């Protein structure tokens, strides 16, 4: 559809993206594309050991190498050497919670705690020289036993990751709703399982990077950073460097995929290089290489669950007990966001009256864990969906039936869980119609027909085909707030600035759609700026699928205000009551007499007069700023289904058909939404069957390259995919949106497991572990 011919209502339209012409022609600026005159290059010396004491560091030879400008170790940093801030508060909202804060440090001082931890930085005239100089640095290590396994970490004779703690316990949180033990006493069926989820990488195609420039004359620091959170980063850097916020500008230009780790702030590189640039008075660039990305970009998912589920004989859940260990890696700067999400998602979409959940978070000698697309949610969903599947088998129910018997009914919203979520607010599901979503997915995959007709026929032909269907929820759009400023310019074009960064979610378009509808302008005339602290400096960042929800609603609110100003001016100048005016075609006009109109551009000039007076109580210009903070996070939900075929000789899996039904409230742009779901799905498939970070017993990461760590490729994706949509608008925000950025990834491992078990029914397989791989599956099937 040619958008220029449409007058109104962009929200909900499938329109192409405003940002694409730049991205498609190589004209979009990414961090690595920033080039400044006189720029130096940095390279980091990283630990090869997972755990070792540093006895001595000698950088003198490196300093002698021609072209090397500086070499810094922790000892050179003086007072600036400090552990990073805790990025989320400790879980004090939960009574009895234990939490030990041990945040990452810019450069290792006395010991290294994970492979890849930076020990020194070389700054030189070129990256080549800097990397060569790394070889000149001598470090004497005393290797220590590495803490790798999660249970081993808690054993009394484990080595200590942090010597000043009594054990490797980082946190301990127990939450209970109802009374699990009482419920268990009444149960007909009790199932216990151990469920294990291992680590994967976010593996954005763009590695991390920072370019910094301290302008000594202007006394200003500019930082281009591949961050998801430019504003908090700016605030933190200013504080650390003793500068005012106005002296620091952080720009998150186009960012080549975030998926979580780029929300991790005050990473060693982005703290150290601004400091170095101020000392050297030269710009410095550091771009992570792929191996560093594997070693030193945060990761996620390692958990071991001991789960117990208590049911009646007709499949009603009476209670759930989940005791798990969560691996936070060497430090815990992100507090308990990930395990709290797991606790909030292990109840799934179900009405569970009695729930006991206990997490022990442990330090290990592995890379730091912070949210990766899904952020603890896929693990929680894997736990509950697997347990339901096993219960269904035990009770002779279909996977659909057991879910339907346990869903939170549509009339029970808002549904309160009486546990605390990642925002330390009570977990409340705001809205949804879970049975309808599941039924839709079942219909779209033709579940009944497949099970009754097609599967028996294909099985008779010797094919191992299986079907799966699961439900899930996703808490999204958490606070605290975002803001936006909207200005109509003299050209009639509209400028929108907001603090969130963007990593491919299409914000330049979806935000423009919201504004275009309010102001009656062409969506191509709305220019959106994100992620530049010089343009807007209040906000938090893009995480937890919150961009469209929180920033989207802030933009909506600001647009409503600008609209009101336009109407007020229009009414005055056209001499008609506001109710008789409309905003369309870039003008304010009389609805019944469209030729009686003023263009927004003209109005913008009139509203900002050069002479005369601005009336008291009004502001000049057609501009407004507003903020939005949701009362609590909106909860999206969905059901996914798939049909797959396994080759029992090679264990290669082909996904024949995939169905995803999502309820994410009001859809801003289906083109963008579908892309997000499909992308999430590809990452979910990776988490299920291809991607696993292999650490050996010494804490060495064995597959730190894209050759050895397999991302899903074009040929691995399902042959056919169908997306469905149910819409229950969130009552929590004016647009009615819920987030979706992570939804695709969340249900896939549990779905994949169910479908595999179904396909390999003759082998009586029970999958309680993720990620799998063809090899692993082969072992499970044949080594029994």
């Amino acid at each position, binding site marked *: 559809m040619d958008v220029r011919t449409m007058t109104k209502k962009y929200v909900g339209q499938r329109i192409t993206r405003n940002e694409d012409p730049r991205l*498609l022609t190589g004209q979009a600026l990414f961090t690595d594309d920033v080039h400044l005159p006189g720029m130096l290059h940095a390279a980091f010396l990283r630990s090869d050991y997972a755990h070792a004491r540093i006895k001595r560091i000698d950088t003198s030879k490196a300093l002698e190498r021609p072209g090397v400008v500086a070499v810094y170790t922790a000892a050179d940093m003086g007072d600036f050497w400090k552990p990073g801030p805790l990025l989320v508060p400790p879980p004090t909202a939960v009574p009895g919670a234990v939490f030990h804060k041990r945040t990452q440090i810019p450069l290792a001082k006395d010991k290294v705690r994970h492979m890849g931890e930076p020990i020194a930085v070389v700054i030189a005239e070129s990256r080549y020289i800097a990397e060569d100089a790394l070889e000149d640095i001598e470090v004497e290590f005393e290797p220590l036993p590495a803490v790798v396994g999660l249970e081993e970490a808690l054993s009394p004779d484990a080595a200590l990751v942090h010597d000043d703690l009594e054990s490797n316990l980082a946190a301990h949180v127990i939450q209970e709703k109802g009374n699990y033990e009482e419920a268990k006493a009444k149960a007909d069926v009790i199932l216990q399982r151990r469920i294990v989820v291992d680590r994967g990488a976010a593996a954005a195609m763009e590695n991390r990077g920072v370019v910094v420039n301290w302008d000594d004359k202007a006394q200003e620091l500019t930082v281009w950073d591949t961050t998801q959170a430019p504003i908090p980063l700016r605030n933190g850097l200013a504080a650390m460097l003793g500068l005012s916020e106005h002296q620091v500008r952080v720009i998150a230009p186009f960012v*080549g995929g975030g998926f979580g780790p780029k929300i991790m702030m005050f990473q060693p590189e982005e703290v150290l290089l601004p400091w170095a640039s101020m000392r050297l008075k030269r710009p410095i660039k550091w771009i992570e290489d792929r191996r560093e990305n594997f070693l030193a970009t945060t990761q996620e998912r390692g958990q071991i669950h001991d789960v117990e589920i208590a049911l009646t004989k007709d499949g009603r859940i009476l209670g759930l007990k989940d005791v798990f260990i969560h691996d936070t890696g060497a430090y815990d700067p992100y507090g308990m966001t990930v395990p709290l999400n797991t606790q909030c998602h292990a109840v799934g979409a179900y009405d569970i009256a009695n729930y006991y959940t206990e997490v022990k978070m442990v330090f290990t000698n592995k890379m730091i864990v912070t949210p990766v697309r899904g952020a603890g949610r896929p693990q929680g969903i894997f736990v509950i969906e697997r347990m339901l599947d096993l219960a269904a088998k035990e009770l002779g129910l279909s996977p659909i039936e057991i879910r339907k018997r346990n869903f939170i009914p549509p009339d029970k919203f808002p549904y309160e869980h009486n546990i605390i979520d990642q925002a330390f607010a009570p977990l409340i599901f705001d809205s949804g119609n879970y049975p309808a979503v599941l039924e839709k997915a079942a219909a779209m995959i033709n579940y009944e027909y497949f099970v009754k007709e097609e599967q028996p026929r294909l099985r008779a032909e010797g094919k191992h085909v299986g079907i799966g269907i699961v439900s899930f929820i996703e808490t999204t759009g958490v606070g605290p707030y975002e803001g936006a400023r909207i200005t109509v310019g003299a050209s009639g074009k509209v400028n929108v600035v907001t603090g969130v960064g963007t990593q491919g979610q299409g914000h330049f378009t979806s935000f423009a759609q919201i504004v275009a509808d309010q102001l009656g302008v062409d969506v191509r005339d709305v220019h959106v700026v994100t992620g530049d602290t010089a343009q807007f400096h209040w906000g938090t960042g893009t995480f937890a699928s919150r961009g469209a929800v929180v920033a989207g609603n802030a933009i909506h609110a600001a647009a409503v205000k600008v609209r009101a100003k336009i109407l007020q001016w229009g009414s005055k100048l056209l001499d008609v009551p506001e109710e008789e005016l409309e905003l369309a075609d870039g003008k304010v006009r009389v609805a019944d007499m469209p030729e009686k109109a003023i263009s927004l551009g003209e109005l913008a000039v009139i509203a900002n007069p050069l002479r005369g007076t601005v009336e008291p109580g009004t502001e000049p210009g057609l501009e407004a700023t507003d903020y939005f903070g949701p009362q609590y996070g909106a909860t999206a939900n969905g059901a996914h289904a798939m049909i797959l075929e396994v080759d029992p000789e090679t264990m290669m899996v082909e996904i024949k058909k995939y169905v995803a039904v999502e309820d994410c409230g009001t859809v801003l742009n289906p083109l963008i939404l579908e892309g997000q779901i499909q992308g999430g799905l590809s990452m979910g498939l990776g988490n299920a069957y291809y991607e696993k970070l292999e650490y050996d017993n010494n804490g060495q990461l064995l597959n730190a390259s894209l050759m050895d760590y397999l991302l899903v490729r074009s040929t691995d994706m399902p042959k056919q995919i169908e997306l469905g949509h149910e819409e229950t608008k969130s009552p929590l925000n004016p647009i009615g949106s819920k987030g979706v950025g992570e939804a695709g990834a969340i249900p896939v491992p549990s779905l994949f497991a169910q479908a595999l078990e179904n396909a390999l029914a003759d082998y009586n397989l029970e999958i309680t572990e993720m990620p799998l791989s063809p090899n692993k599956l082969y072992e499970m099937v044949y080594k029994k």
Partner: protein
Amino acid sequence: MALHRITVTINGEVELVDVPSHMTLLQMLREKLALTGTKNGCAAGECGACTVMLNGEPVNSCLVLAAECDGAEITTVEGLKKNGQLDPVQQGIMEAGGVQCGFCTPGVLISARALLDRNPTPSEADIKAALVGNLCRCTGYFRIIEGVKRAAKIQEAAKEEMTYGIG
């Protein structure tokens, strides 16, 4: 450091460049010629973000030494748009919603262009095979594949128009 003086035709322009022996084609494009559209995702031939057309063939420019390119013809993402008109692969992928973060896009576009050059009417399997070396973490590939299908149609339609226009 030994410097090699090479002549290359990049996006139709002849360039004379002095390159050190160790410099890759990717580095030459990005650092010497400010053609930063071509991306570096791994510098090891594993991701395809750096794909450019070298004498009509798609290659990972991170694996080619610049000094080897003397006399070569190179097309990068910056050279696809001609006379203010997006190339059918750009148009098709945009319409299909095949761009998210856009980091893999330059490489994807070149692989797609190379495919349509050798096979103007590719099947879905042909498209998937042509893109197997281009990793994309954002899109799950569906919309990219859809975009290449569209591109083939756009290209076909343009050709017909030309034929009729002349005839």
